[in-house]
């Protein structure tokens, strides 16, 4: 392996170690707390806080006169927190809605921050270079001191989440119930707010004010695709945060002109798109496959139902049918019909006879009868219980017949008392 790459992976160089550790530690806290922001549909609140941190950083610098990380962090916490309070206050005390309150707060605080920053840059202080790094992050120029301070804040954040998991979960899911059982909802809100501000203050060291929202939301949104459990989601989100930090540091190591912060966000976005596509269950591909499967089942059942219907009419359910005969009863495009029949043959519901003719096997007759039964039972249900006119029930039954489960079928039969025929006087075939 290329010795330079080995240097990176083994973290042999202390400056590499600082950047990699920094990138990981700075992102992991926001990735974890971001899960709650995402689930509470407050993603934009994080964005506003990130922007509102800027004036605090500038003010702290103006007061202290150096870029002491602790001072800048305290300044950031103060204005970040103040922005949360002001959003909350605007929503509670005025008729302005939350989205407008967020926009208002974000722009006012950010504008103030830019104003102060410009003022500092024109003041000619020798110490001020690099302050504008807060806009886009400074992961590549992190010092060991920064990593120690911000890293420990990140770890503290994770510990608090672990310790108050039950409470944070409760207030995220059902704030009213939290109050109803006498839990201190205001305090828990405050705790969550403080955690969010801390995560933002730490995270902007790596990716900057402008991209911070991505570090809060992207790993959480990616994690949501993989799991239905909050604890797992937080772990996964943290893991994605780590991967993003590591990946961003690696890319900017390979290509030193590349800024680390934006690359961290790019890698996070890649994990998101990867999750969006391939996650089982919620992922796009899994959904598409399920949809395709549904289309297949629907086609097969429609063919069986149609052949069953032809059999009902001429009194011979096993009869051989040509494609034309089937198409006369139900207009299925020829290619689709052939495809469906081929699958039905391999599933042993249909047999192919000589001369391009097709007949139902006993299994095919049973399944065709079941679909017919469900269709007609549902039509009876709609006319009797939902009081829909008999000439309006067919389309609905066309889709319901493919999804009714055997339990629902039994329930429907019992409820309707096994009617003999449907609203169109067609006999319902029972087993």
């Amino acid at each position: 392996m290329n010795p330079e790459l080995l240097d990176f992976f083994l973290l042999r160089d202390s400056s590499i170690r600082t950047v990699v550790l920094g990138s990981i530690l700075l992102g992991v806290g926001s990735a974890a707390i971001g899960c709650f922001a995402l689930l509470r549909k407050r993603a934009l609140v994080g964005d506003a806080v990130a922007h509102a941190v800027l004036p605090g950083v500038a003010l702290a610098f103006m007061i202290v006169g150096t870029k002491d990380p602790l001072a800048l962090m305290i300044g950031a916490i103060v204005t970040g927190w103040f922005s949360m309070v002001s959003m909350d206050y605007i929503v509670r005390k005025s008729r302005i809605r939350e989205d407008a309150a967020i926009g208002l707060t974000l722009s006012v605080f950010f504008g103030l921050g830019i104003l102060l920053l410009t003022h500092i840059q024109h003041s000619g202080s020798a110490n001020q270079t690099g302050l504008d790094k807060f806009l886009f992050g400074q992961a590549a120029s992190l010092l060991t001191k920064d990593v120690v301070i911000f890293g420990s804040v990140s770890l503290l954040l994770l510990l608090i989440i672990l310790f108050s998991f039950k409470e944070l979960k409760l207030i995220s899911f059902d704030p009213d119930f939290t109050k109803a059982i006498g839990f201190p909802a205001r305090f828990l809100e405050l705790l969550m707010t403080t955690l969010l501000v801390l995560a933002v203050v730490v995270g902007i060291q790596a990716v900057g004010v402008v991209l911070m929202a991505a570090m809060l939301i992207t790993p959480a949104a990616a994690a949501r695709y993989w799991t239905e459990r909050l604890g797992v989601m937080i772990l996964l989100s943290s893991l994605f945060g780590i991967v993003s930090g590591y990946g961003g540091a690696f890319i900017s190591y390979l290509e030193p002109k590349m800024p680390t912060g934006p690359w961290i966000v790019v890698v996070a976005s890649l994990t998101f798109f990867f999750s969006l596509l391939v996650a089982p269950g919620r992922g796009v591909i899994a959904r598409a496959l399920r949809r395709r499967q549904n289309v297949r089942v629907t086609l097969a059942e429609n063919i069986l139902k149609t052949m069953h219907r032809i059999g009902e009419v001429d009194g011979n359910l096993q009869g051989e049918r040509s494609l034309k005969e089937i198409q006369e009863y139900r207009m299925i495009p020829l290619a689709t019909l052939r495809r469906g029949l081929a699958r039905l043959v391999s599933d042993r519901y249909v047999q192919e006879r000589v001369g391009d003719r097709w007949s139902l096997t006993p299994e095919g007759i049973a399944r065709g009868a079941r679909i017919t039964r469900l269709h007609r039972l549902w039509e009876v249900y709609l006319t009797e219980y939902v009081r829909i006119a008999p000439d309006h029930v067919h389309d609905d039954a066309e889709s319901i017949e493919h999804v009714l489960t055997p339990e629902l079928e039994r329930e429907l039969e019992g409820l309707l008392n096994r009617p003999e025929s449907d609203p169109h006087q067609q006999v319902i075939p029972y087993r």
Partner: protein
Amino acid sequence: MKFNESLSGEKKEEVEQRTALSGVPPLEVHDLTVSYHRRPVLWDIDFATPEGKLIAIVGPNGAGKSTLIKGIMGLVPLASGYVKIYGEDLERARSRVGYVPQRNSVDWDFPTSVLDVVMMGRYGRIGLFRRPRDSDRDVAMEALRQVGIVDLAKRQISQLSGGQQQRVFIARALAQDADLYLMDEPFVGVDAATEGAIIELLREMRRRGKTVIVVHHDLGTVREYFDWVLLLNLRLVAFGPLDEVFTDTLLQQTYGGRLNLLTKVAELMKEQERGRDLQ
């Protein structure tokens, strides 16, 4: 039959004994007023409930039914007035009140399981920053059994039907192990089987001396389900036993012009259907 009668007689005595023991109304509401942006949405509500009854809160849309429940639970600020639970301040008596919010007040796509949600009913007893014990889990499972969905304990809540969601919320309230229950529209959007199961459960709770207050929207079933009725339309129109309060005159007062022909026809049709079922 005889056995049954004597049993229920015995139960009744038990309940009466309990009532005599506590002797204080489960819920007293004094001069309660709630306003929203300085516009009063509830005016000077004043009542005290008896013990061991199923009580319906009935009134037109926008009458403040949910707000009343939320005001009692301390979820909305009171402009004036106060609430007593078994003679005590709400904060001291929280553990004696179970709460079922409206089903659509939460996001059912939240990543958690049925059992986890029901466990939230135990949180009040477990306390802040403490871990649930095995006994809490047992109580939650028992609550799930009572609402008939114990087999769904591990299910993700995003996969539940409307009726199942409602059962989960009621199980969570049962897990609170309270004496007074406030339920906000538990019958809205649930299937017939769930409605039947819930009303059976409410009756069982009444047998055990619990008091249950339910915001109810379906006038057609009030007579069948409840013992006492609170008629509400921004102010309290009437509160008392079903026969005294659930009358045409008072309903007319509550609904104003809104209890129109259509509502009455709908009620008649329901009555007729019920008659047909009996035949």
